[in-house]
């Protein structure tokens, strides 16, 4: 009897650990996407509904290049570059044009763009899932569960890139101006921050992060044209829950939204996981309309 209980406990700990790992991995990717979104939203107050499709384009860039025999790690960079560049084009052609109207046009236009991109990719490559093989197979085993090497590396890499973005924001001139713009656009303009250039840069950076995240996630998720929708919803939920105050908030929100969804999926079901996430966001918005991490005076602490 005692023996059985011990075995049971061991199995549970192993499972728990494995699920914790899965959740961490999901959160790291979500945080990457959400931070990209946060930069664009926070800096420009532009709601880019096509952000999920940028993620999707990153994944397809990875798949397409990989199928042509190009090195996986190079493709990660290529995806960031390609999607970042695409973001610049979108900013020039659409966002900048509508920015001055100051109404819902940008949201609507990027919503249209998201459908356009999604269906365009569907026409080009079909709706069936594309498989992206990761550069590693197998992985270490712990308490009876295998931890895929690639998933470990992807998680670490995601956190590393997040850290790099944080450093960029806290230690560089660009970051200083960006933070000023986020906290007080009028003030930043008065301090002679070149807003046009800042906007283009932040849009490029946000897009590149989405593209990179998509490429990084490609071996872990099913790559289909409609994959972006889930991610843009999650990422915006993160921003709503956390508040648009700081990068830390985006990371914290990702932990809540992504962590809950991954955990609930593991113990019950994916659809109900998403339903509960919506319910949680609904309740949190009622309790903290401005976001969990937007307590006054605690923004952008160095």
């Amino acid at each position, binding site marked *: 009897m005692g023996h059985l209980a011990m075995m049971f406990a061991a199995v549970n700990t192993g499972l728990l650990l494995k699920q914790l790992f899965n959740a961490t991995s999901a959160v790291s990717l979500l945080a990457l996407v959400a931070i990209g979104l946060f930069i664009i939203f926070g800096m420009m107050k532009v709601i880019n509904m096509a952000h999920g499709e940028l993620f999707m384009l990153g994944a397809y860039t990875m798949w397409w290049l990989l199928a042509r025999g190009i090195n996986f790690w190079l493709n990660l960079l290529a995806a960031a570059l390609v999607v970042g560049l695409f973001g610049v084009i979108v900013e020039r052609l659409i966002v900048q044009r509508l920015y001055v109207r100051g*109404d819902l046009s940008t949201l609507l236009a990027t919503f249209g763009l998201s*459908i*356009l991109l999604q269906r365009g990719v569907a026409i080009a490559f079909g709706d069936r899932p594309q498989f992206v093989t990761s550069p590693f197979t197998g992985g270490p085993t712990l308490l009876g569960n295998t931890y895929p090497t690639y998933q470990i590396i992807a998680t670490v890499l995601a956190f590393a890139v997040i850290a790099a973005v944080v450093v960029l924001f806290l230690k560089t001139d660009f970051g200083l101006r960006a933070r000023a713009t986020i906290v007080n656009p009028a003030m930043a303009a008065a301090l002679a921050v070149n807003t046009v250039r800042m906007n283009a840069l932040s849009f490029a950076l946000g897009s590149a992060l989405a593209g990179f995240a998509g490429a990084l996630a490609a071996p872990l998720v099913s790559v289909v044209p409609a994959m972006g929708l*889930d991610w843009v*919803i999650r990422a915006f939920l993160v921003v709503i829950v956390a508040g648009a105050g700081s990068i830390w908030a985006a990371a914290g929100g990702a932990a809540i939204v992504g962590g809950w969804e991954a955990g609930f999926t593991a113990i019950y079901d994916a659809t109900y996981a998403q339903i509960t996430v*919506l319910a949680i966001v609904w309740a949190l918005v009622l309790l903290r*309309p401005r976001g969990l991490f937007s307590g006054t005076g605690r923004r952008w602490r160095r």
Partner: protein
Amino acid sequence: MAAVTARQGWARVGGLVWNARGAALLLIGLLIYGRLADPFGLFIVASALVLSLLALSVDLQWGYAGILNLGPAAYLGLGAYTYAITQRKITAGSPTYLAFALAILFGIVLAVIVAFPAFKARTLPVYYALITLAVALILQRWTAVSYDLTGGSNGLVGIPLPDFSLPGLDLKMTTAEQFFPLASGVVVAAYLACLWLTRSRFGRLLAAIRDDEEKVATLGYDVATTKLIVAAIAGALGALAGALYAPLAGTAHPSLFGIAFSVQTYVWVAVGGQGTLIGPILAAIALKLLENRLRGVSADGYLMLLAAVFMLVVIFLPKGIAGLFDAQAVRDRFRRSRGGPIALAPVLERPLDEPHG
């Protein structure tokens, strides 16, 4: 000076009567079409009419209150499934009044639940657009996996036509052709109701909110409740569309919640002109007939086309194609670009205006 208000009042009534006459013309035209057209054409126009209720719901929100519900299809699906499930499982064989009533009730309840934090808690404006999109997506997934209730991804088939029989009065529909006058009547009635609403003091309040809601709040109005009311009305309209669509199509399917329906609705409203009410209805009929011509194009291709048209309209024609024919709108475009009823309402209301003084 009292004459000014009286005449103004008459001008407003005149505008409404004219529009009622326009609506009557539309109704007569539709009914004549109903006599002449082949069954397939009838089906196409009937579904355009039913779905144009959804377009009205979007127009009320986007065109008049300035709020974006990106998942209007959520209400379409909700209404359709409510009708289908009520008819098949609860009131099979008896009149359909309960099915319609429940659909509308659920539409209002869902709309209020979804919109409540958006407007009452004053969170980020993107919340409403996003949560509506998410709710539609989740409902689509949920219906696809809930086999017992919704038939899962196969959907529900064999949904009966409505039966409005009263004791001693047989009003049971037996053919799809009989559905057409019903759809026409409901749409024209809904159009007139929306017209009345947007021309009333409530409509003026909406126009003001859209322009500067902070200022409206300092005038003592409850902006949040006003928006919530609009969302609820829109929810009712959307669910009504669904409850009519299910018997027309004969099926209820998870794709009713899908993004294709939402995007299509937005295209109709954008092309027809947001804040015009009649524009989206006409656009729905025209584009639905056009879609039927484009049968050769793939569904993906068609959706892509819609998305492209939508983007172009949003970017270059903020008032829709209809805006091209509106002199005031054109003048406004040269002055300051702002869409919809703010510019349109005064034009429509002043056909009989007296000279100043």
